[in-house]
């Protein structure tokens, strides 16, 4: 227990430091973008949260496969904890995307491919969370969520292609010819991604611990009920 607490504190500390460093780099290290100006700085949060959100959903996909293969609760806890944290990150991606779009495109929302794919992803995992709250049996809830998490993730690449071929006006940062960024911008982006990933790991760990605590509480309640009857 002592070692776990130590790891938790180390993660929280590392996340805090990394986030402060990322903030400093975004506002003081990264150069001002020539065309978009200061509003471009939101890009470091937008891309980092999108990356971590997608990674979170990948972990949900892996957790779902793990649960179906082993029937072990820890995989299920990992899957839905990651989905919840991933959902928060994708929400952040959508909001930062819209805040950036207003001054640059003149509108908060347009049926632009990456906005659309993020919106679809957001809806998929909102549905995942709704499903979890709606199934009567805990065992079935875990299995249903695992199946939905797998199906949701495997359709993402298809949505990606469908929307990309449809039409796109979103800037392409990473292409076959490399990154369309200056070295300082790349450093800032990498630090932001690392900071967001550390925060994700911290939140995920806390969410998992919360679920284990809930399980222990439910078991204690049952023991209490059995003793009382």
């Amino acid at each position, binding site marked *: 227990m002592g070692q776990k607490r130590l790891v938790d504190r180390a993660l929280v500390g590392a996340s805090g430091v990394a986030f402060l460093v990322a903030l400093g780099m975004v506002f003081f290290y990264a150069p001002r973008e020539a065309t978009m100006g200061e509003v471009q700085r939101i890009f470091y949060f937008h891309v980092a949260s999108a990356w971590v959100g997608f990674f979170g959903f990948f972990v949900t996909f892996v957790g779902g496969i793990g649960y179906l293969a082993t029937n072990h609760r820890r995989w299920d806890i990992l899957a839905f904890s990651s989905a919840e944290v991933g959902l928060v990150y994708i929400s952040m991606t959508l909001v930062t995307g819209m805040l950036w779009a207003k001054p640059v495109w003149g509108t908060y929302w347009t049926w632009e491919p990456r906005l659309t794919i993020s919106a679809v992803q957001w809806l*998929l995992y909102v549905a995942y969370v709704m*499903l979890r709250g709606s199934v009567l049996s805990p065992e079935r809830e875990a299995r249903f969520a695992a199946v939905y998490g797998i*199906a949701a993730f495997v359709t993402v690449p298809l949505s990606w292609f469908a929307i990309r071929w449809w039409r796109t006006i979103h800037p392409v940062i990473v292409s076959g010819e490399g990154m369309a960024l200056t070295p300082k911008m790349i450093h800032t982006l990498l630090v932001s991604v690392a900071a967001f990933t550390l925060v994700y790991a911290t939140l995920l760990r806390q969410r998992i611990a919360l679920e284990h605590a809930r399980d222990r509480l439910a078991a204690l309640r049952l023991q209490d009920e059995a003793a009382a009857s």
Partner: protein
Amino acid sequence: MIDVQGLTKSFGPRQALAGVDLRVAPGECVVLCGPNGAGKTTLLRILATLARPTSGTVRIAGLDPAQAGADVRQHIGFLSHRTLLYDDLTAEQNLAFYARMYAIPDAPARIDGLLEQVGLTARRHDLVRTYSRGMQQRLAVARAVLHRPPLVLLDEPYTGLDPLAADALTALLTDLTGEGCTLLLTSHNLQTDVTLNRRVVVLNRGRIVYDAPHADAATFPALYRELVQEAGSKTQDAGRKTQEAGSKTQDARRETQEARGKRQGSANERVGESADHQLRSTQHAAPLQNPKSKIQNPKFLRQVWAIVAKDIAAELHTREIFSAMFVFAVLALLIFSFALDLRGALAQAAAPGVLWATIAFAGTLGLSRSMVREQQTGGIEGLLLAPVDRAAIFFGKALGNLTLMLAVEVVLIPLAMVMFNVGLLRGGVLLTALLGTLAYAAVGTLLAAIAVNTRAREVLLPVLLLPLLTPLLIAAVKATAALLEGATWAEIGGWGQILVVYNLIIIAVALLTFGYVIEE
């Protein structure tokens, strides 16, 4: 026939079975008693392969149900709390459907005989939903023993039966024991079952607290109450409880020996005596095959077709899904038309999007209802009990849903042609419609099987389904639009590929995961 050791089953933190050891010899007839929540139904469902144990071993005639699921299921008959019948089929259609699932060679004769035995010959062509509870229970018993299983598990078989029907059931069970069947039945009715002079096992809080070869009708109810209360007040003293139960078992055996001498003949006793005889004569054997059974291995495609035919027959009786989908689709077309003021060139440009949105909404409605029909009286459990490949169930349900959706489209597409003045009757457009609908039916079947087991089943299916269908709907709309503008199927490129790839991926995912969705 049944060998269970150290069996536990937990539902989350709640333990339904807490280490059950039970052996039932071939031909034996055992009554499983216990208060509500004791774990009787859970034990029966595990033995019937409908639920998986958390730990412990289960052997049915020496076979592990987890390893030899289909082989084991072929030899088990299960009467559940629910009838596992389809309300929208007749009694004869229900039995004929299950006969196909079990590949019974002499099905018509067997169905005739059983309907006669349960007194339903005169009502054989009536829909099950018009039956009284007692009639449905009788038909459910006929369904459970249709394939002449060597092991029959009955969960509260006398529920809802009047005295005459109960006598008929007793006679049927007597015949089964006479044929060498092993019977395990649960009951709350202590007086009736104990007078049958069967082996009685009492389950309380997931543990066996009493097991006696014969229990005396006069003394058992009081003993039972004592056992249940005692077990409740001494849950922390499991060791002592087991010893007490053991000594009570010895006492009960002694009492029963005495009672047997005084026993008077009755029609009901035949079951117990027959079971005793079978127990004595076949104690050392473990026959999996019922001597009268002529079971063959059912064929995959026949099972798929049987499920499709069953769904179509149910729909032909009611026409409720088709009617609802069609009317809803027409309403959607009208609403889109006036909401977007679709006229002239605008109507032609919007036609693909409006058409696919309409198909999506109407399809969701139909999918939801189709799975509710399957689940309403436990039909899906009936399928899981049969030696049916889970893939066959998926294909059967998906093709049934596809048939319904295509039937609606057959009317909807010409209607859309008239309303939007577009030529939809082209090879490419129809191929797009087929591929889009196939994928929709596949993913919809998977998700409808999930949604039907949720509290918010009516609203959750579209929430789950529509985000997953985004790539499909985009591809279908874009492909349809390109084809209407004169492109050929080869010229629409990526959209056609997405439709094909989506079908392949979603069918693969559904095939791999459908078993997890429909099993308990």
